[in-house]
């Protein structure tokens, strides 16, 4: 229902695309659909650093990133005229790296994963070297900087203004910024809002075993400081194949052309919604961090498997998850508590 439309011309593409669109996907599900979600913390962190004077006329912004945060930074730094040096690993190569380089940033690809901590660790080591090579640097530190989750407060306000009471929020977790920040902000208004994290096998974020992750963009090999474990009620682990099917279905059913982590989150949200009766469905937000562009080949090349689970397997502990769809009642505990069980 559109009561009033306000039309303006935006100062630049960042202003135009940084906030998400809220899309009703039928019944109780609302997509929080970003063009590129990481633009939001990138912009907030850069703006603050410019205002505080931590980015000066000769400062180089340096950061370690596997993709979307780097792209967000590249856009912001380009628009502000700030030099940017990113450290990443081979997964970034392709259109994302092309876009980042085209925006004038240096993309420094680390070729060898460290024995402990994998590519994440070797990138951090390289980050250290690079920071020492410039006279003045600023590192956004997306995994620990509290301005990352704080950047999502305007999204909470947008959602409250558009939808009023929110009962459930489901979203992919990677750096921990978006889900931690958004959930905490929403709970100021509605403390009972439940939060479900969408993760993938191989990620250590929620006390599961570490390993290679086929579904990139969510999960992590290290625990980011910004991940506020005590915020989450439930965790689901979704496989790449399941995410691909879900993302295809999101397009064929709703014409939403979004990335794999968005499809995974939608799949989980749909299942959780089905467990609630008509009267107690409330409103569910599904966080959709990016669009389908960089997944196109996989998306159209995918074929559904008959052996796919239609329901997630409930595990007694995250260490018991397998390669397919699983879930666990996290119950807002800390990581230490989960590891002690």
């Amino acid at each position, binding site marked *: 229902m559109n009561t009033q439309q306000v039309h303006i011309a935006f100062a630049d593409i960042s202003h135009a695309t940084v906030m998400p669109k809220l899309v009703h996907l039928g019944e109780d599900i609302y997509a929080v659909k970003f063009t590129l979600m990481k633009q939001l913390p990138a912009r907030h962190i850069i703006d603050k650093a410019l205002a505080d004077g931590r980015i000066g006329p000769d400062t180089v912004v340096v950061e370690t990133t596997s993709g979307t945060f780097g792209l967000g930074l590249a856009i912001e730094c380009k628009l502000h005229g700030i030099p940017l040096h990113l450290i990443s690993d081979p997964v970034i190569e392709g259109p994302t790296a092309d876009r980042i380089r085209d925006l004038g940033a240096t993309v420094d690809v680390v070729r060898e994963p460290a024995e402990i901590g994998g590519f994440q660790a070797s990138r951090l080591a390289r980050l250290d070297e690079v920071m020492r090579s410039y006279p003045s640097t600023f590192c956004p530190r997306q995994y620990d900087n509290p301005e990352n989750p704080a950047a999502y407060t305007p999204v909470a306000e947008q959602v409250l203004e558009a939808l*009023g009471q929110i009962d459930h929020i489901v979203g992919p977790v990677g750096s921990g910024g978006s889900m931690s920040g958004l959930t905490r902000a929403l709970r100021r208004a509605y403390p009972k809002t439940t939060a479900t994290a969408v993760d993938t096998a191989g990620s250590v974020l929620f006390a599961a075993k570490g390993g290679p992750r086929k579904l990139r963009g969510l999960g992590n090999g290290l625990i980011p400081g910004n991940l506020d474990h005590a915020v989450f009620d439930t965790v689901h682990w979704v496989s790449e194949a399941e995410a691909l099917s879900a993302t295809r279905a999101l397009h064929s059913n709703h014409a939403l052309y979004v990335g794999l982590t968005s499809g995974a989150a939608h799949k989980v949200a749909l299942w959780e919604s089905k467990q609630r009766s008509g009267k107690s469905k409330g409103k569910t937000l599904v966080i959709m961090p990016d669009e389908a562009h960089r997944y196109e080949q996989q998306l159209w090349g995918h074929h559904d498997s008959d052996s796919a689970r239609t329901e997630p397997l409930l595990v007694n502990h995250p260490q018991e998850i397998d390669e397919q769809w699983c879930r666990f009642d996290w119950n807002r505990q800390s990581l230490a508590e989960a590891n002690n069980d």
Partner: protein
Amino acid sequence: MKTPLISAPYDVGQEENSDQSGRKIGFGECIGHHGEILQGPVAQFGQGRVDALVTLPVQEYSSSAIYEHLPEADELTVLPWYCTKAVAAVRVMCAEFGLPEPRGLLRIESNIPVAKGMGSSTSDVVAALKAAARAYDCPLSNDQLAKLAVRSERASDATMFSSLPALFTHRNGELVELFGPRLPAVRIIGLDTAADGIDTLALAPIQYSDSDLYSLDCALSLMRHAVKYDSVSAMGRAATISSTVNQQYRPKAHFAKLLQLAEQFGVGIQVAHSGTVAGILFDPADPAISAAMASVRESISDLGFEITKEMSLGMEFGA
């Protein structure tokens, strides 16, 4: 038109407000409010934070004034005698607008309790200004009224301006943001948390924490939603958030208990942020509202409070 609280010896129609003797007469009124739904330094796009409020206007409280210009009088007399600010405001108005020096009688009647954070003083002033403006056939815009009222008081209330659902600046009642044509319909059980009043102008300014500010921003978002989508529950939640923030700095007795009642039986709680009254809010469309309000009445009585007035909002107000 609402029946005036006091009856005039003359017909107060605008066309007939003077006779050959040079006497003029005018009538004015201003509705009061029951504190605020929301108050504090809220973020406004492109302006940083603005100290603003959303008032809760209620017809059950109002001030009325009758202004008689009597050329044979030496000066302007006011009844009751203590409404000196109203006299001052009328003097300023006459000076500003090139009107004759005020002389005659100004009578003010009001059922707004004094010193409770309900804007009694401002309502008196605005009613008096409107009455004098009518008497002198000098139409004033809301903006002009507001500026005149502010000059007679250090801080003013927003109901002077209009009863539209809007965000006004705290200090001088300037319109910041208009939410829509009307507030959602709501029923209110009002009570006074302190028998003695307070000097609303003597309070030290509040130092809000970042957490408080974010909470108020959420309340403002919910207020926009409430008016746009006619949601009394969103408005109730906004009021609860704001009054909970306020409680840290201007505590009202038994607030925790009142909050619990509001959450159990109603849609929220609002307070006079610089005063003592509080209101439990109910959804008029709730089928269980009678039982809910009965339970709350009983609990309020158990706490030792008296219910001051039961109010309802459900009509569109003219400015």
